[in-house]
């Protein structure tokens, strides 16, 4: 129930701006529905008038006129026309509202994500977040289009028909409705049963898909180990389970439509049977009797329509509620805290980490009492085995995460006191795995400074050793960099991202050296590009190459989250400690 409340709150939030449109739509729906349920009465009148006309025409001396018939017919056509006009108009308004509001939901979700912490992204798989866009928003849109407004219009139609039927004949109205409690009950039972069965079906299907996925991704190993037969044997039980679970799921979910059709048949049979019997045994006038039956035959068909429609939208509605909940969940996750007011100026003195403690999860500390002092213009190499906390230091300098204890200062001011944007505009990063966007080369390089001139972009590219390559491309700087395209090698993407950082001219630089295998020539280029970007800047480098480490002003050795050694290469070698051992044993600096 709480889920439903959250979902309703979500929908209300995004539909509120459209209340005028919704009101207009509601008026059109009411008017259209009124005309729609009124029209069959005129059809009945027309039949009745026609019957009277025939009777009069057959009675010698009777005065036969079709005037009543024409009038009823005209009224019927008019009301049908009105009802469809009402439906069209309300439909137009509603499609506008639903497209626009879902568009707003899409934008809202995206802009909400922009405010989330790095912690959020690190602890949620990209694929899962992406499915909010691809699957959940889609479900919401489908439901908006079909379900949400249908509940209203079908509900109005349902009540309207009941009202009209009661007006016309209370007995017949009760007869028409007699079956519906049973039909609704059966429908709900089936929908409920189907949902449970489909859950099991999805579980079984998920297991099967997982198995297939794993086996086929490892097909090379299966072939090398001669495991094909064994793989098929293990596949069989998964397949059989899906077959069994799906047969039930399919049966129950497929049952609704034929069963509702069957109920509608039965209802019509009852209406015809009882109506005819009533007309004959109550000594009703024939013209009125025929008209009564025609009217109720039409009503009983119309009356059943909302019942089957409403049960049919149960499932999409469930999906939409789940989707709305997931999206709302994201919106309620904490945003990045940005309450610092100070504006970071150009770096004058240096950056100091003093007694920094940090943990991603409280029970597992990553950094313990880390202190590093970097003067302006210095280069610090962070080295240490995997898991020693090197990357974490980088996360803290850019305030991707906030410290657990201790302090990091930039020219003496704590990082937390700066406005986030102003701090990050002073700090540049080059990631180990370079990120490029599906934009032109120019836009990729100018990513951090969209208004950069062509000269600035080219200058950055030159410094990053990529300009010459770009000039060999037919479209030069306007070439699109797309993810799937093999136009750019890993090394070239690396160079592009270095150029991007150079263009923003950061004061403090954080570099995570790439370990990816690139060919010797590109590696040489990257090395020179790195040197260019570090020149005259203060930098932290997570170093993997010996060459980089050797040129550092200060080497900080991390192990298990602690700084165990600090100093220049020569000093550390002389210490004969961990670093010296690393160096002599050629342990991989990963």
């Amino acid at each position, binding site marked *: 129930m709480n889920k439903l409340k959250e979902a309703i709150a979500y929908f209300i939030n995004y539909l509120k701006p459209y209340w005028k449109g919704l009101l207009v739509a509601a008026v059109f729906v009411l008017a259209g529905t009124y005309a729609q349920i009124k029209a069959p009465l005129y059809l009945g009148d027309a039949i009745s008038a*026609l019957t009277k006309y*025939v009777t009069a025409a057959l009675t010698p001396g009777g005065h036969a006129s079709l005037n009543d018939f024409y009038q009823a*017919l005209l009224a*019927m*056509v008019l009301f049908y026309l009105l009802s469809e006009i009402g439906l069209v108009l309300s*439909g137009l308004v*509603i499609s*506008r509202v*639903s497209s626009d509001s879902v*568009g707003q939901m899409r934008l809202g979700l*995206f*802009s909400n994500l*922009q*405010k989330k912490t790095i912690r959020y992204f690190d602890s949620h798989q990209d694929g899962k977040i*992406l499915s909010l866009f691809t699957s959940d928003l889609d479900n919401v849109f489908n439901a908006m289009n079909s379900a949400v407004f249908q509940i209203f219009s079908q509900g109005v139609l349902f009540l309207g028909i009941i009202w009209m039927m009661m007006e016309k004949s209370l007995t017949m109205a009760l007869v028409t409705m007699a079956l519906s409690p049973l039909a609704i009950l059966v429908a709900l039972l089936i929908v409920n049963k189907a949902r449970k069965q489909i859950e099991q079906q999805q579980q079984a299907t998920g297991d099967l898909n997982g198995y*297939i996925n794993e086996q*086929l*991704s*490892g*097909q*090379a*190993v299966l072939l090398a180990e001669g495991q*094909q037969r064994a*793989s*098929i044997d293990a*596949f069989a039980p998964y*397949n059989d389970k899906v*077959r069994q679970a*799906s*047969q039930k799921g*399919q049966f129950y979910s497929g049952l609704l*439509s*034929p*069963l509702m*059709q*069957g109920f509608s*048949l*039965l209802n*019509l049979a009852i209406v015809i*049977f009882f109506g*005819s*019997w009533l007309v004959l045994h109550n000594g009703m006038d024939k013209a009125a009797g025929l008209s009564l*039956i025609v009217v109720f*035959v039409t009503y009983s*068909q119309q009356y059943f329509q909302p019942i089957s429609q409403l049960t049919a939208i149960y499932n999409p509605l469930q999906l939409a509620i789940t989707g709305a909940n997931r999206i709302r969940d994201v919106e309620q996750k904490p945003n990045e805290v940005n309450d610092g007011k100070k504006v970071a100026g150009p770096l004058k003195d240096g950056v100091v980490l003093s007694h920094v403690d940090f943990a991603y999860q409280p029970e597992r500390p990553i950094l313990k009492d880390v202190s590093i002092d970097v003067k302006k213009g210095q280069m610090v190499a962070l080295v240490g085995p995997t898991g020693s906390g090197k990357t974490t230091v980088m996360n803290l300098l*850019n305030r*991707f995460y906030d410290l657990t204890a201790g302090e990091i200062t930039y020219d003496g001011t704590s990082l937390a006191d700066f406005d986030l944007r102003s701090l*990050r505009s002073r700090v540049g*990063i080059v*990631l180990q795995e370079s990120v490029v966007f599906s934009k032109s080369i120019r836009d990729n390089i100018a*990513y*951090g400074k*969209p208004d950069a001139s062509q000269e600035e972009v080219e200058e950055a590219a030159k410094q990053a050793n990529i300009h010459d390559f770009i000039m060999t491309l037919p479209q030069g700087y306007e070439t699109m960099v797309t993810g799937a395209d093999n136009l750019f090698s890993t090394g070239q993407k690396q160079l592009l991202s270095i150029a*991007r950082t150079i263009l923003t001219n950061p004061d403090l630089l954080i570099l995570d050296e790439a370990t990816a295998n690139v060919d*010797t020539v590109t*590696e040489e280029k990257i090395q020179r590009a790195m040197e260019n970007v570090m020149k005259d800047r203060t930098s932290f480098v997570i170093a993997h*190459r010996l060459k980089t480490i050797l040129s550092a002003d200060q080497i900080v050795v991390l192990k298990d989250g602690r700084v165990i050694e600090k100093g220049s290469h020569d000093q550390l070698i002389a210490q004969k400690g961990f670093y010296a051992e690393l160096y002599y044993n*050629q*342990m*991989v600096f990963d």
Partner: protein
Amino acid sequence: MGLLLTYAKPYWKKIIVAVLSVTLLAASTLAQPQFLEKMMTAIIQDQSDVILKNGVFLLALAFVGIAAGITGTYYASQVSQGVAADIRRAEYEKIQAFSLQQVQSYSSANLVVRLTNDINQVQQLVMQMLQMVLRVPMMFLGAIILAIWTLPSLWWVVLLMIALIVLSSKRIFSMMGGYFGKIQQLIDQNNTLAQENLAGVRVVKSFNQQGQEEASFADNTNELTAVNRRIGYLFNLMFPIFMLISYAAIAAALLFISTSIKEAPDQLAKITPFITYLNQILMALLMLGMISTFASRGFVSLKRIGSVMAEETARLDKEAAGQPIDKAAFLTKGLRVEKLSFTYPKAKEPVLKDLSFELAAGQTLGIVGSTGSGKSTLALLLARLYQPTAGTMTIDGEDVQNIQASDWHQAVGIVMQKPVLFSGSIEKNLRMGNPDASQEELAAAVRAAQAEDFVQAYPDGLAHEISERSANLSGGQKQRLSLARALVKKPRLLILDDATSALDARSEKRVQEVLEKDFSKTTKVIIAEKIASIIHANQILVLDEGRIVGVGSHQDLLDQSPIYQEIYASQKGKGADHE
């Protein structure tokens, strides 16, 4: 379609029951207005007994309809799931018979889709076919015939209504057609934007570009919204237009009848059934439209499955490939490769060109070369997971194609660059190539692969479960286990494709020592990025752009091969000289 028929055949009895039930449901729906006409006539003629009799018929008919609906759905779901499961199994068996090249030419992700999503579509198609494809055309034609039969003079009203509905829906669909392509494109763009934003979240934040990101996302989303709106408008026009056409048909029918009712008063009872038939025609038309979009998707999937099933299983050995080999006598002399070339399907350039070399039994061959030089391809060819495009491989003087691929795989161990383990216990993984290995043999392999420390750290040891995608193992642990798996097999030929890259230098060294000491009789092919890993090999091949550009010992190559010198020099900084 042929595929579907083949797999539907075993279910023919259930299919008949399903089709009959559905037909019965349609027939009872169609018959109802006929009874209605009789009842109306009875009212006019005051026949109480006729009403009673037909009333009971009507009720019975409705119950038959309900029962038929339930039965039909039951059998339809039995058949559709049965057919789907059978096809899935056959397709899976087919894929298991594929060569690695075939798997890769589709890509395993693509095959997964064909086994899951496509089968699902086909299952839906079968279900829909059994439930609707027969019923709807029957309803459609039945209602047309009965409508005309009820009031023959109004045949033109029926046909005119159908023509108008078909024409107007065609018009609306053609207006929508352009938007559908557009919307798919916009949605793809939208997803790409979101995906890149997520993947580059650190870049976005550190460059302060949230605003720019939102702006370009908004541009795309607004365009998407505009197209959604237009499609919505058109969709909303469709149904009311159809309804208006059918109302117009009803009005026309009434008007026309009024002109001749004096001459034929029995038409009075026929008006209502006629109207009911008109409604049924309209409903059937709507459903026809729905089915055709649905079925077209199913047929696309069916075609994709069909192309997998039609694939010829590539044989890696000659048909006559003879007797099972004696593993102990395998590779006692040596392996000889002559003028071996390999070209990937659809590629223009071969990745390996005219390779010739020899490897004596018990020796170690090192292979080095830059990325893209063809090293891994050569490993797969030696493991006979790929079939050479040209050239021959002989073992102990015998053409390898005379040896069954499965026998070859028994005797040859390969550890691939990307270690792959399967969910399940460590033991189950290790035993893959040698189900009969003893506990001691498993322990020895684990020790040799330097995996003993972390395996023993698990309280349940070898019974420890590896989770899906080996998420609970580090890169180094995965490599150690996949090496152990190859060693459990006691291979006569061991191929290591950069198999220790994620190990620290010390463990790597120990692995090398164990391989030299305990597997001294095993012939080895070691592919390495680091020269240090193959420095002691009897023979080293230097590959460059698919060709052998140097052969010899480490010292020979240092003296002669410029490329080897270059590779060596680039690694010197990393300390290769110390090892």
